[in-house]
């Protein structure tokens, strides 16, 4: 008996010391294609550095609150994290993220410049754009039938025609305030309007804003609100015509029913073009309280290496790099990356303000009221403006 206990102890000691030798990095990532492509790159890094990488795959809201909660601890649970651009202000002003420059990470010219707009805060680098998510227009090929989609007027006429033929026109996501706001943003931008003015004050009750909402009401009257999966299925099956989507949602091919294109930012065919594609770029940062910052920086550098990023393309990765997006080999296989590249170059980040979560909740609530006929355009926007001004004070 004593022998048995002793031998068990020895085994335990061996196992625990073996465990202690391998450093383990914990990655908090946005679940979906975003984390999938990173997971595919990990084995090579693990082998090279003799580390183990644990991946936590989280939904967007979950990721946000987990990172925020963990930031309060002196020793953080995560070593590398995906960050949505809209959290940047909140995170950087509260010291959640580590200065990447100090860890030897820097951005190169290969990365699409517009995407790096939110990377710096106070002159320091905190976030590296990784996954080039940007809104595109997802449409059903048969229903569009080669008609031009060069302006919002074009979209409206195609959608109306579809509705007349008994199909749904424009589909938007109506399930959360965030989705309501984001899906509306390309139209808003096309009208030359924005949610904030030049002084970062709310500007949702302007004439341009109202115009944009009124146009959007006409557009969504041709279809309906659906959840993401339904939206994709509706457009793919040909029950609906088009909607605002993301490259990660759909893999178009010669034979696929749907395809996507960049949103031109023009209201009418002779109007001015605005940057109208909204970024949903997933960036990567390192939590300031990570216990393995140096190693995490190594991993980050490895992940954003142009060759490594290019290798993710075939699994659905969308690098924010010219070297990947303009590569002839890539384009031969995935011609839609040309569209993505264009959209990324003309992309707009959601406002980098600390109150963004509350901001979109308020705006989304009022937009929901307007879209569902609970409030008039004027009343809804007025209420939104009042509440937002109160918030930003």
């Amino acid at each position, binding site marked *: 008996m004593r022998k048995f206990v002793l031998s068990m102890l020895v085994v335990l000691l061996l196992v625990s010391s073996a465990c202690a030798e391998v450093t383990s990095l914990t990655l908090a990532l946005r679940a979906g294609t975003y984390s999938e492509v990173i997971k595919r790159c990990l084995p090579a890094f693990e082998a090279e550095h003799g580390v183990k990488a644990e991946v936590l795959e989280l939904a967007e809201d979950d990721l946000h609150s987990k990172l925020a909660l963990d930031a309060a601890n002196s020793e953080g649970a995560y070593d590398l994290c995906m960050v949505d651009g809209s959290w940047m202000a909140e995170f950087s002003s509260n010291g959640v993220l580590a200065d990447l420059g100090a860890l030897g990470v820097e951005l190169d010219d290969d990365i699409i410049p517009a995407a790096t707009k939110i990377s710096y805060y106070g002159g320091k680098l905190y976030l590296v754009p990784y996954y080039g998510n940007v809104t595109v227009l997802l449409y059903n090929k048969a229903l569009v039938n080669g008609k031009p989609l060069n302006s919002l007027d074009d979209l409206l006429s195609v959608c109306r025609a579809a509705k007349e033929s008994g199909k749904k026109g424009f589909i938007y996501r109506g*399930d959360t305030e965030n989705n309501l706001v984001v899906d509306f943003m390309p139209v808003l931008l096309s009208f030359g309007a924005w949610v904030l003015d030049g002084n970062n004050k709310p500007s949702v009750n302007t004439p341009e804003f109202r115009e944009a909402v009124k146009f959007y009401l006409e557009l969504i009257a041709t279809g*309906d609100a*659906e959840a993401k999966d339904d939206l994709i299925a509706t457009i793919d099956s040909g029950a609906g015509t088009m909607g605002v989507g993301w490259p990660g949602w759909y893999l178009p091919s010669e034979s696929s029913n749907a395809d996507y294109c960049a949103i031109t930012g023009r209201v009418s065919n002779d109007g001015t073009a605005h940057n109208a594609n909204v970024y949903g770029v997933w960036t990567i940062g390192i939590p300031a309280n990570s216990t393995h910052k140096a190693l995490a920086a190594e991993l980050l550098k490895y992940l954003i290496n142009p060759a490594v990023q290019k290798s993710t393309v075939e699994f659905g990765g969308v690098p924010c790099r010219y070297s990947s997006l303009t590569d002839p080999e890539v384009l031969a296989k995935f011609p839609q990356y040309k569209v993505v590249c264009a959209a990324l170059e003309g992309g707009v980040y959601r406002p980098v303000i600390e109150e963004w979560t509350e901001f979109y909740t308020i705006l989304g609530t009022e937009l929901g009221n307007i879209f569902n006929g609970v409030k008039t355009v004027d009343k809804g926007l007025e209420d939104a403006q009042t509440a937002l001004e109160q918030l930003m004070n």
Partner: protein
Amino acid sequence: MMKADKRFAVFMVLPALAVMLIMTVYPMASTIYYSFTDFRLLRRNISFTGLKNYASLLSNEYFLASVWNTVKFSLLAVTFEVVLGFLTALYVNSLKSLRLQKVLRTVILLPYLLPTVTAALSWRMMLSPNYGIVNQFLAPMGLPVHNWFRDIHTAFAMLVVIDVWQNMPFVFLMVYAALQSIPQEQYKAARIDGAGTIAQVWYITLPNLRTALMLCTLLRTIDTFRIFDKVNLLTGGGPAGSTTTITQYIYNSGIKSLKFGMGSACAIIMTGLVLVLSALYVRDIMNQRSI
């Protein structure tokens, strides 16, 4: 001897007490404390703001709407759950074939055994305007394909339907068990006294089930008041806030934006409401016991 016994007793209770303190009292106390502050996660400094959170909540039309939605949801769902569960139990209990009773019992219980998330997602699939089985039934009958969760007229009702579907079996089970324990001779006596089927239900079944029904109502009220996963997964509180319950409001305005002070105040108000509502039932159940 007595003293040692007492010390031993205290010693034995300590772990449970400690767990209680850590798991219940501490979070409760901090929630109450935070509700009087402007605590935001990520911000280091917390300052005491008194009743400001409560005042701004009670003057916020969307919060008040969420309270009303919750109360409405709770009342509707509990009413249907209790009535349907009671009627189903009555029906199954009245079946002559014990084997059929057994089969039905299991089948009826199934929805209750599903995790809420699974149930919600199955319903989302069933009611999907694309591949949903419900719409596939409606379409051939010439009925319009409906977007159940995105229509301001149907979304709330769908949540009630799904909650009733999932939780009616709980009431069924409780009532069914209680029905089995009613002495048959009471029914015999009532039949001889001239009570028909309805009079038997009214004078014998219902009074005998009183405690069980009150308990079901209490538990279901508390539970429906806390509804979150179904709302969050199926409607996200929309369309146009028509399905925003208190918990969804807390999630949107407290948790997502990390305003824990505000969220705590919300939670305290909700707890207060549940307490008031359930106090009525609890008192009744206690009275029943003492007879």
